[in-house]
């Protein structure tokens, strides 16, 4: 039994907005896998809740008229992973959210909830950063769309105005066309864990597949909110693909990230792992983008920390 003061169930988006206007102290509950846990912990005990769980209109993935990929904010992680559009256009997002918690959490957890929490470790967030995702917010004044980087204000705080709800996450065609990506979650165990570090990389290769035309590198847990590694991207853009150039990109990461010391991991450790992940994720993204010559001595290890392990006997 949760210590909830009142629960208001929204029937549709405008009803949700009305309820939020009527109960300004109320918090939004989507899937509840974070909100309910915080109520139990005492952090949000006694809260008033507006449940948007029942808003079917916010579930599902589709292509808009201009081929923008639209993900309804209440789409669960497991549904994103299984979605054919996701699998075709940005499979890496499906892979990333397939590393959240365990299967039951992926059934209840929503991508909107994951981003609205404003936490840096969200598995979806670094990948959405890497793909220049746009956040759609709907409130009493109507809808607005902002880049995901503007949506995150600081740790635990996102640009969600009073009575506003996040209704969709969009990835424009120019952001995904021709790009291939890879996400590595670095966690202390292979399931039921939060990322100690997450790195999502995507690249677009030149027509001859020998150079990097564009590269986007994003991190979770390398700072208070998910972030892009702009210096590292700069170091890679336009470069011929060699072990050396990849190495230089990963070294440049240190100019961008600002991890901190905590009991979960030291700054030095996070910095070291950031470089390793960048290198490995970049290599895999390059391979996925169609490059064939790159020799990688640790293909297996590309998956280290990604909830997949090597084959098992029996």
């Amino acid at each position, binding site marked *: 039994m949760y210590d909830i003061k009142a629960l208001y169930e929204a029937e549709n988006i405008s009803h949700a907005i009305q309820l939020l206007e009527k109960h300004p102290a109320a918090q939004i509950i989507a899937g*509840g*896998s974070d909100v309910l846990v915080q109520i139990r912990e005492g952090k949000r005990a006694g809260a008033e809740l507006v449940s948007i769980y029942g808003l079917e209109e916010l579930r599902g993935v589709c292509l808009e008229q201009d081929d923008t990929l639209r993900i309804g904010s209440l789409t669960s992680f497991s549904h994103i992973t299984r979605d054919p559009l996701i699998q075709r256009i940005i499979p890496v997002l499906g892979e990333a959210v397939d590393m959240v918690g365990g*299967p*039951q*959490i992926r059934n209840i957890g929503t991508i909107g909830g994951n981003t609205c929490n404003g936490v840096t470790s969200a598995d979806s967030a670094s990948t959405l950063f890497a793909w220049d995702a746009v956040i759609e917010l709907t409130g009493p004044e109507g809808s607005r769309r902002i880049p995901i980087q503007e949506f995150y204000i600081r740790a635990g705080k996102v640009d969600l105005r009073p009575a506003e709800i996040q209704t969709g996450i969009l990835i424009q065609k120019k952001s995904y066309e021709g790009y291939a990506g890879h996400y590595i979650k670095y966690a202390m165990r292979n399931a039921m864990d939060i990322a100690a570090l997450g790195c999502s990389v995507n690249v677009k290769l030149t027509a001859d597949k020998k150079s990097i035309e564009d590269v986007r590198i994003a991190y979770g847990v390398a700072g208070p909110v998910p972030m892009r590694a702009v210096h590292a991207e700069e170091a890679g853009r336009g470069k011929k693909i060699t072990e050396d150039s990849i190495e230089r990109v990963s070294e440049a990461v240190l100019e961008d990230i600002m991890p901190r010391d905590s009991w979960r991991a030291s700054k030095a450790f996070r910095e070291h792992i950031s470089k390793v992940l960048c290198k490995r994720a970049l290599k895999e993204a390059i391979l996925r983008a169609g490059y064939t010559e790159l020799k990688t001595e640790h293909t297996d290890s590309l998956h280290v920390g990604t909830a997949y392990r090597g084959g098992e006997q029996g």
Partner: protein
Amino acid sequence: MSREQNIQYKLVRCKINGVERETMVDVRASLTDMLRGDYRLSSVKKGCEVGECGACNVLIDGECYNSCIYLAVWADGKEIRTLEGLLGENGELSDIQQAFIDETAVQCGFCTPGIIMSAVEILESGKEYTREELRKLLSGHLCRCTGYENILNAVEKTMKKRLGKL
């Protein structure tokens, strides 16, 4: 700091183990609270109450959820299945339950109901999975007794039997 004591209730109608049910539910209740408290479905276990152990796992419209972090009111209109629903009319065990017995996959038994319900979702997909994929599909459950070994054996064998491959 006195609190309001206006407890809010909602009528929740849902199908539980194949039977249409309805009851007034305190809106503060988790689905675990409702299933254990109102329907006496004690196979739904409490191990952490924050969605980390999987002991309270049930099927909602065919998908697995930790009922501890699912509000009971959300169950309205849903079809819910718990371990109690697997038993045949005359008390016959389902194949997966029998496999848990045959493969010595049960020890203290506290995680067992939740894991069997995840196995049901896996088996009902009709797909064949590798052992590694099964590990991932079951990874929302913690067990301290078995080392997971015999549980995997039970699920894998039942899957193969259903697919006619064993």
